[in-house]
């Protein structure tokens, strides 16, 4: 019966993929009435701006506090959407209707996210083709492609951020995954084009641009390698460099051209890169600076207790009250945007060097991409915890192929996803986020364990304990803490604990990934001829 069941499933062809995609779409439709954040108003405002104002006003408009701060392609995307919106509810397209809300607006916005996710579904489909299916067992649910599809399509972080909190990350990650898939499929020009387009949709993907740049330069522009794998300078192809450069130039010209003509580039860049914001976002992302802040805060408290510091010199309620302003550290040296940039670049260097000196084909590129994204997350300025998805999603591709990557993936994903919990702070959404988190975590742990059951255990005792420790942390922060008297006196404590605890896990994952890149993969990773 089991064999016929599996055989029947394979005979069904891509039926299981459609079922998975449909299933998650249904879930997204059910989440329509859930809580949405101010991002909903942000996007409504952008629909209004792009619809009712001329291009010259787009990056100057500031009636609402949610000014346009994404690159021009996204503005054009909102412009196209607004033309559909006018048939749904014209009132939402008025710039002066601040915080306008109606059920039709909600339906339109939510469905636009669900609809644009089609690109993400297509990208996942393409990525599945790039996965080595040699491990395929007879059972459909134990094949790497099936597990990868579930890990990507039903990704908890993406569901929560896109379909509850409200953003448009689905199709953007679709573009990124599609460009990665094209690089795997030896279509680098398309990959470069897709990535260039993506950069002009959302500039946060600049974090992973070094990986693309170095890989394309090393593995595409140098046509062949010396026998020992190092650079053969004579095989440098100007044609290829030129064509890549042309693609990037044309895309940028298409995007920035109109604004260059209007002399608005400085204004545009000031909107895109607002460095006046603080080191940490309102809810601290679990990165290195969260640990740095925590240490600084702890040292200042100890210093006060031991009378080593003068209480008058300390700014009141520094970063911990969760405001998006610039603050100074009390004990440790203050951190400037330049310092974070330098730290990020230094952190990215090892992986980029490895990509240059020891290229291992598309998989090496993917590893470097994940490491760049994670390094930028760890050391970046004003990082939002949503940025962890930049590392989690590509990592899924690596996790279904090697056991070592699978264990890093489990730690990174679980802590990264848990750190997204503070985004949904309303009571009705509490069961949903807990249930979905459990669903994804249990599935990912057990499916990867089943996939790699012949190798040693994916998680050792300390790692398992650390991950299980998230449960009491959640119980304390969301169930017990609000009932205590500390809620009014120290309202930031749950967020502090959450980001501190998760920062440990993410830093650990980052270190392990660095090691695996620097030390090379044991036994695997034959240098592929490009």
């Amino acid at each position, binding site marked *: 019966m089991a064999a016929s069941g599996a055989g029947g499933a394979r005979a069904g062809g891509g039926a299981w993929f459609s079922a998975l995609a449909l299933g998650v779409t249904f*879930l997204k439709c059910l989440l329509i009435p859930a809580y949405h954040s101010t991002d909903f108003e942000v996007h409504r405002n952008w629909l209004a701006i792009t619809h009712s104002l001329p291009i010259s006003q787009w990056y100057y408009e500031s009636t609402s506090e949610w000014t346009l701060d994404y690159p021009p392609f996204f503005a054009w995307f909102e412009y196209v959407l607004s033309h559909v919106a006018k048939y749904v509810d014209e009132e939402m397209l008025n710039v002066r209707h601040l915080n306008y809300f109606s059920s039709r607006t909600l339906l339109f916005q939510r469905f636009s996210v669900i609809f644009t996710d089609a690109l993400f579904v297509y990208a996942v489909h393409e990525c599945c083709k790039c996965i080595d299916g040699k491990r395929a067992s007879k059972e459909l649910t134990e094949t790497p492609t099936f597990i990868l599809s579930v890990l990507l399509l039903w990704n908890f972080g993406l569901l929560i951020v896109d379909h509850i909190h409200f953003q448009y990350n689905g199709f953007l990650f679709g573009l990124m995954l599609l460009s990665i898939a094209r690089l795997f499929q030896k279509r680098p020009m398309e990959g470069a084009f897709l990535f260039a387009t993506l950069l002009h949709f959302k500039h946060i993907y600049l974090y992973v641009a070094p990986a693309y740049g170095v890989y394309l330069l090393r593995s595409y522009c140098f046509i062949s390698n010396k026998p020992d794998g190092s650079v053969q300078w004579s095989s440098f192809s100007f044609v290829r460099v030129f064509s890549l450069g042309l693609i990037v130039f044309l895309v940028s010209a298409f995007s920035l051209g109109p604004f260059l003509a209007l002399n608005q580039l400085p204004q545009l860049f000031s909107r895109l890169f607002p460095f006046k914001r603080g080191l940490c976002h309102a809810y601290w992302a679990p990165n290195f600076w969260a640990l740095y802040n925590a240490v600084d805060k702890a040292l200042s408290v100890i210093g006060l207790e031991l009378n080593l510091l003068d209480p008058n010199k300390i700014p009141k309620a520094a970063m911990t009250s969760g405001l998006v302003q610039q603050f100074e550290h009390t004990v440790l040296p203050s951190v400037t945007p330049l310092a974070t940039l330098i730290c990020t670049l230094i952190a990215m260097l090892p992986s980029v060097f490895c990509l240059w000196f020891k290229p291992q084909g598309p998989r090496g590129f993917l590893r470097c991409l994940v490491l760049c994204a994670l390094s930028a997350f760890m050391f970046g300025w004003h990082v939002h915890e949503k940025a962890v998805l930049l590392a989690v999603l590509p990592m899924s591709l690596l996790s279904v192929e090697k056991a070592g990557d699978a264990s890093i993936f489990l730690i990174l994903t679980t802590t990264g996803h848990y750190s997204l919990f503070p985004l949904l702070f309303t009571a009705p959404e509490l069961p949903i986020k807990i249930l979905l988190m459990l669903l994804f975590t249990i599935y990912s742990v057990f499916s990867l364990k089943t996939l790699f059951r012949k190798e040693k255990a994916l998680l050792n005792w300390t790692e398992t304990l650390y991950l299980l420790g998230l449960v009491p942390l959640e119980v304390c922060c969301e169930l017990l803490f609000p009932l205590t008297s500390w809620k009014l006196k120290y309202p930031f404590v749950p967020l502090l604990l959450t980001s501190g605890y998760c920062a440990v896990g993410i830093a650990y994952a980052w270190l392990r990934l660095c090691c695996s890149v620097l030390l090379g993969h044991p036994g695997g990773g034959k240098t592929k001829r490009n």
Partner: protein
Amino acid sequence: MEKWYWMIVVVLMGLTVRWAVSLNSYSGAGKPPMFGDYEAQRHWQEVTYNLPIKQWYFNSSDNNLQYWGLDYPPLTAYHSFLCAYVAKFINPDWIALHVSRGYESQEHKLFMRTTVLIADLLIYIPAVVLYCCCLKEISIKKKVANALCILLYPGLILIDYGHFQYNSVSLGFALWGVLGVSCDWDLLGSLAFCLAINYKQMELYHSLPFFCFLLGKCFKKGLKGKGCVLLMKLVCIVVASFTLCWLPFFTEWEQTLQVLRRLFPVDRGLFEDKVANVWCSFNIFLKIKDILPRHIQIIISFCFTFLSLLPACIKLTLQPSPKGFKFTLVSCALSFFLFSFQVHEKSILLVSFMLPLLLKDELLMPSVVTMMAFFVACTTFFPVFGKTSEEELKLKSFCISVRRYLPCFTFLPKLIQYLFLTSVTTMLLLTLMTVTLDPPRKLPDLFSVLVCFISCMNFLFFLVYFNIIIMWDSKHGRSQKKIN
């Protein structure tokens, strides 16, 4: 068992869908003066907490029975009391006598939805999981698929978590009963089923198959020996459970009578509103509700109900088997629904969807989505559109018998597929029309009546189908297993 984690995943999936549906509105939201079932449940918490037991079912100045009086058996009342106890702890305003009428707030909605989830989690979901695990002769993958399809059943989700009711408690108990009785834990099964009946009297629809099955088991064991012992034990269990539930109401004859009057309101007519019942459909052509006097209506409905379920029950008593038991459950429930007196559309929660009701509660989006999800899940795991053979339709023995008289009767599977497609298409069309168009002014109820009529035809077909399976499934059963 490597696949057990799939069961956990499926349960989590079911819970997520349930809670996501509960984010929507409930029945009677913001509609004074009567509101809806949500207010009824809240009112019962108010009544049971603030008044002594003797007054729960009686009309008094403190308890106006016209405003959502208790009309479910005592176990519902005790459950409401328990919920009220917790509510008092959190916010006494929710159940303050008289003052809290029509109380609506986000926190209260969260509390009420949580009570439904907890009841579901404690009673219904474990029953489903255990039931699927105990299914015999199928792979783990199919067991998990069964559990998923059962947990995704839209009717229960929409009524319990949307409209607002506690059907999962009574259905859960009934399922425990089915499980117990099928696995030969007869005493526990009977106890569970008695609890189900004492929670909602609607479960009486299932009581006859239980009775016949258990009686058949006793006969099989021999009335002079073990069978008699079993019968005695069962009688004791039933009497004991009923006594325990009704204890406060057995003290006075008047109490018991009043509760019975509330549970079975024979003062109302043959049917109320539009329901997919034979009488409602028949009423389109011939207004029997107005022509015949009340007591004749009762007698006619009783006769038809009795006659339609008689064959299956007799067969079950003479040849008790778990498979026959399950089919008889369905066919008896259908018979009761189609032919009995004063049926409410929510009674068919068991077998269908209730579109007009859900539209009134503004639950269109969750209805459509859950129904599509259920459909996709079922068609993914249980191939429907492929070639269906007579064996798969379980109609092989029937077809063989008919072919003795009509040798050309080979077209049944194709006919059934054709009928299935027709009925699905008709239902889709009707749904679309109900949602998008306005009915003509001369016939304001056109769409709901059409929905009821078509549903009634479907149910009648299923009644005949299940009865055929029950009657013709016997000696041929063993030879079929060899073929599979």
